[in-house]
């Protein structure tokens, strides 16, 4: 597949607006503002089958339709979630740093469809370069009349503000992000009400991922049918960026049609080109740290799309594929991820606040050779006590994925640790989350 979202990545001066316009940029915006109605725009996105690229895979056009017809005088906000903080994920960063105008064009079109006057980009604090690039790009867009009052003489106006986060994983959760944007502590809100009804400043808000918004100009330019034809089936459409990391020869971001085989991504010449040193695969995390681990047999015939990975009992999530080879200590990998989650829990719900550090402490003990046989079942019990409605947001459901999936699928390795008090592979994991 020819690259769509990343077609300009690597071009000289790909961040500048003149280069973007020269490559046909802002044509989609001219098209939409040249006579399309907002409803028509939403309908086109709906028809494309575009599903949210942030992790949950919710159909974007349907989400846009949730904004109440009568907003009771309140404004509608579009909020771009650029808080890319899922361990192993680095696709949005590429899009923002190398082709910021693609995102801005996508946001203007989406805002038009939502009848939104003010839009925000919430970018994670660590993305200093990305924030600078976006700020520059927004400035250029204002200067060229693609933002601000009366865009391209259409009478439509939009302001975009780039807002930097302060470094919290939970601010990637959409309601946590909204709280943080409002200047409060980054804690997820109780749902309902959902942001589409009551979000930023209690006004209807649509939160979309960077990659999702970047798809929008292409859908407008080439049509929903074109977009819907890309991908494995009609429910998993469009181009997709995959982030692959871990023990592979060529880690990085690769664009492919939705539904790329996981094995192709790991071994394909166009992609990661196999395992380092020709080692065997022990486990693969297919969708960022929050996704259940898959074992080597499970990655056979695993199309990387929302339904394909779900069928394997895991999730595509942010499409961050972390590959671990046979030399990886799975307990250490789980410990590493649990440390991350216990550090990042916001602390409002009891099971997550207390459970995540407990998991880490138990895993740490097992890895350090101080585990007991009953600890293996204890891990599973703690995990099961944290999930499925026990908390406000899905953070704790995410936090239990690494320990629970590993303790289920690699029980032997855990038992080895607690019985022999040594590590099965005799080394620490190379994965750092």
């Amino acid at each position, binding site marked *: 597949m020819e690259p769509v979202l990343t077609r300009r990545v690597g071009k000289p001066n790909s961040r500048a607006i003149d280069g973007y316009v020269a490559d046909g940029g802002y044509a989609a915006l001219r098209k939409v503002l040249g006579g399309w109605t907002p409803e028509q725009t939403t309908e086109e996105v709906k028809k494309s089958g575009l599903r949210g690229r942030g992790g949950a895979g919710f159909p974007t056009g349907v989400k846009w339709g949730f904004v109440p017809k009568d907003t009771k005088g309140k404004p509608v906000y579009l909020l771009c979630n650029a808080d890319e903080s899922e361990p192993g994920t680095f696709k949005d960063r590429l899009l923002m740093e190398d082709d910021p105008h693609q995102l801005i064009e996508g946001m203007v079109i989406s805002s038009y469809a939502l009848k939104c006057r003010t839009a925000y980009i919430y970018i994670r604090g660590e993305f200093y370069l990305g924030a600078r690039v976006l700020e520059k790009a927004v400035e250029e867009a204002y200067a060229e009349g693609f933002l601000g009052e009366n865009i391209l003489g259409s009478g439509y106006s939009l302001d975009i503000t780039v807002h930097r986060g302060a470094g919290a994983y939970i601010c990637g959760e959409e309601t946590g992000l909204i709280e943080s944007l409002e200047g409060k502590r980054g804690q997820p809100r109780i749902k309902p009400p959902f942001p589409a009804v009551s979000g930023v400043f209690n006004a209807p808000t649509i939160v979309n991922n960077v990659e999702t918004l970047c798809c929008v100009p292409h859908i407008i330019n080439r049509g929903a049918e074109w977009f819907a034809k890309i991908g494995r089936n009609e429910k998993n459409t469009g181009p997709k960026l995959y982030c692959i990391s871990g023990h592979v020869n060529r880690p990085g971001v690769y664009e492919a049609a939705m539904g790329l085989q996981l094995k192709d991504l790991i071994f394909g010449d166009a992609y990661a080109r196999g395992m380092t040193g020709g080692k065997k695969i022990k486990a693969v995390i297919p969708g960022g740290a929050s996704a259940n681990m898959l074992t080597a047999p499970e990655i056979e015939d695993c199309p990387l799309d929302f339904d394909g990975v779900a069928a394997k009992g895991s999730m595509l999530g942010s499409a961050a594929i972390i590959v671990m080879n046979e030399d990886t200590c799975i307990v250490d990998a789980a410990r590493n991820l649990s440390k991350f989650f216990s550090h990042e*829990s916001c602390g*409002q719900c009891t099971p997550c606040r207390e459970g995540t550090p407990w998991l880490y402490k138990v895993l740490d003990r097992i890895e350090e050779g101080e585990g007991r046989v009953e600890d293996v079942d204890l891990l599973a019990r703690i995990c099961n006590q944290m999930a499925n409605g026990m908390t406000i947001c899905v953070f704790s459901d995410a936090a239990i994925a690494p320990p629970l999936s590993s303790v289920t699928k690699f029980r032997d390795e855990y038992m080895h640790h607690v019985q022999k008090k040594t590590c099965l592979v005799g080394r620490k994991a190379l994965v750092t989350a």
Partner: protein
Amino acid sequence: MSANPPKPPAAPAPPPAPAGPPKDTFTVVFDGQPIEVPKHLNLIEAAKLAGIDIPHFCFHPRLSVVGQCRMCLVEIEGVPKIQAACTTPLKDGLSVKTTTDKVKTGRAATMEFLLINHPLDCPICDQAGECTLQDNSFGYGNQLSQFDETKRQYPGFDRTLLGPHVIADMTRCIQCTRCIRFCHEIAGTSELTFLDRGGRTLVWTHDGKPLANDWSGCAADVCPVGALTTREFRFRKRVWYLNKTRSVCPGCNVGCNTSIETKEEIVYRFLPRLNPAVNDYWLCDHGRFLAESLNLRDVHKATIRTGTSVQDAHVPAAIERIAQEIRRTVEQTGPSGLFFLGSAHLSNEENFLLRKIADHLACPNRDVVVDKSRTRKIKSQKEWVEGDEAAPNFRGAKEMGLAPGRGGYGLDAVLSGKAAPECVLIADAGFGTAGDDADKVALLRRARFVATAARTANALTRAADVVLPAASLAEKEGTFTNVQDRVQKFERAFLPRPPVRAHWDLLLMLAIALGWGDRNWTPADLLKQIAAEVEGYGDVREEELEGGTLLKKGDFAWAGQP
């Protein structure tokens, strides 16, 4: 007399369906039993109406719902995942299950998580006995835990004063945020906040500023565990030894409903009593920490001054002495030589008795005064109730008729020298700051005879001819009339130790010595007389008299319909 609007006439029977008006209740099914509940309730409150207790920590009826303790888990029919009851909106036909295995497991899991880092040292925790964590652990937790790691500590944030009254111990905190929400939503001062995150989350003040709002004690009240306690009460008494007595705060004329908590004739603390019409769940620090002052006593016996010598006396003898002086004054100068001063600190019954004595003697010279204080306020649901008098019952005392009668004079005239009474009877030596002002007492002292009743000594007791030992608020019963014109009853926590007697008792003895009254009268009888004689007191409702519901620290009673 009631501050509440009169009860509307009973609604006419609803017309037959389907043209009926929209109903103002929802039908909610709890464990198979349908019940009609008002629409504005939270699911936890609705369950309570159905007689079902849903355990919880972070929910409080007057604070915003945050749904974060995850204790109030229930199953909702049609929803696959377990749900927090407090965040589930009520609707018609909602079917709630509170006893399923899933619910039991979920609650036990939350209890286990809460206890893994909570110190299990209840015997040395001041909250023990009124701790929601203890109660819920007993009711819904498992006795055993597999937690075998080092418990979390908060060095530097344990057993530390947060402000003038509240001591914080973060090792005991369960992060329910009730105190944070109290300061933000009720007090409006927002001192407290969450610091850090995850398992290291703690509650503290912004930038180390003190928790010093006027209601800081309430932050400790709403704390369901021993994380916030008050310096004044901490480690003074195990709470299960305390007796609770319905009372009214003596701090100002707002008349917050309180519970006087006592053990063996010692007052240990005040807690608010829930009264949605007055103080709701709250009590200000000024009033709350008056509690210990009820234990002060300087005047243990009656005293009679002869010349420069002061001698202890038998109370009846001292009363007889006052009666003699009164009779002598009436004989020599007529009733205009007498002056009666009531007190805004005394009950309606006591002020009423004093006025009746004056009436009996046909003396028009009676008065009551009050000191102004800075405005004190308390949040009564959404509105503030404000008071600016330094005594609880100025309004009631006035309504009992303590104002100069026809041709009579008041305290101002006495102090300015315009009037020169021969015999002055001051029902309460602590009637105001004037009682401890040597200059003003000297002006009062120009009278030939001054008698008073007192608990603590001041300039007036040192100058008076007869001083009677009088009871504290905890040692007597009566009613106060607050700033909203609500007549509220306070009850006796314990009997005064003889020869100390309640003011009303002393006044009644004096009345009898003067030839009026009945020794068998009690404050309840006096209240009946007030109801019959004083305008506006005839229709005081029993609920208004009773006031609020007793509360436990950290818990809330069922508020009913606000």
